């Protein structure tokens, strides 16, 4: 089926359209929030892998709390931080389903670190998409375990202080240390090139699950223009200039079985 725009020449080819796995709805995300990009990438990957009909999302509590409204497949909405436990419950009784969680840094790295680590340590057949925006977006911009040193937030009004609250937590690296994890990488959503790389990683993560290899996680550096108090463009520049130095992009663990995949798609 070649879709054509109305009143266009036969010579025109459709190059890009919204993926089917995204609902045709208006989202509640702030303008320029890269949560939206992450959603779109996931939907594209699920379309491409043709697994929409057997995918189950476990949404977090965080700005992505309504993700189940935006994805066009079965979805659950977990308690704050408990998505990996809920996903474990689902996957264990639905071994044929493709189950993934989508979690923010407050959700996964703070309140939900136990469930994330244990699901990973058990090698649950799950995929985690981890949105690191260095802040609690939903509740209005409090400090996250991933906030940068010196970052001013509504709960670190004079800037995050290592003495009082420690250093930013590096989840991709920590996850890579667990034997149950087969894929742990960090990507960024700050420009087109990196978005495309992020998509490749998301695809590999889902493939890991489809092959029953174990637990996969993709950490995505993401922007929160609203709570950072920046324009969307400035916010993605901040990701590039401030976050990446603290959160180096890269592959922290890629199981052997996945290595031949890299660069394929």
């Amino acid at each position, binding site marked *: 089926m070649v879709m054509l725009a109305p009143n266009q020449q036969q*010579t025109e080819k*459709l*190059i890009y*359209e919204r993926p089917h796995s995204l609902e045709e709805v208006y989202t509640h995300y702030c303008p320029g929030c890269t*949560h939206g990009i992450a959603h779109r990438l996931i939907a594209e990957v699920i379309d491409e892998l043709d697994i929409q009909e057997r995918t189950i999302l476990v949404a977090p509590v965080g700005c992505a709390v309504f993700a189940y409204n935006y994805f066009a497949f079965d979805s659950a909405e977990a308690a704050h931080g408990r998505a990996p436990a809920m996903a474990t419950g689902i996957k264990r009784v639905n071994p044929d389903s493709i189950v993934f969680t989508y979690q923010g840094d407050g959700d996964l790295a703070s309140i939900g670190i136990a469930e994330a680590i244990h699901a990973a340590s058990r090698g649950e057949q799950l995929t985690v998409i981890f949105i690191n925006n260095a802040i609690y977006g939903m509740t209005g911009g409090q400090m996250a375990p991933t906030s940068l040193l010196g970052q001013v937030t509504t709960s670190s009004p004079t800037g995050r202080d290592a003495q009082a609250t420690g250093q930013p937590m590096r989840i991709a690296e920590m996850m890579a240390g667990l034997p149950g994890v087969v894929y742990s990488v960090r990507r960024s959503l700050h420009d087109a090139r990196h978005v495309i790389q992020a998509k490749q990683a998301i695809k590999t993560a889902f493939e890991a699950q489809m092959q029953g290899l174990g637990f996969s996680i993709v950490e995505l550096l993401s922007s929160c223009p609203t709570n950072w108090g920046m324009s969307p463009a400035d916010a993605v520049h901040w990701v590039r200039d401030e976050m990446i130095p603290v959160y180096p992009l890269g592959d922290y663990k890629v199981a052997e079985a996945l290595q031949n995949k890299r660069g394929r798609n």
Partner: protein
Amino acid sequence: MAKGRVDIDVDRCKGCELCREACPQNVLALADDLNGKGYRPVILLDPLHDCTGCALCAVVCPDGCITVYRDVPQKTPKKEPVLNGKSLSLAV
């Protein structure tokens, strides 16, 4: 240079301008009027047909507002159209 065109869903657009930032051809602009949600959406302003259909705008749009088309030489009508973002790696 390939010729292209984008369709922007102005009702869903939030005017974040990430697409403008990404567009190498500088053919996207903010509209004059607000949309129903109170945002000034982005529109294609391409009098010289500079858009190449590179899809970079679509790749960065958080709201999935952009559909991209590209002219193809008529002689080889492709049998496998690329849908749903499968084209990303081709497009860039």
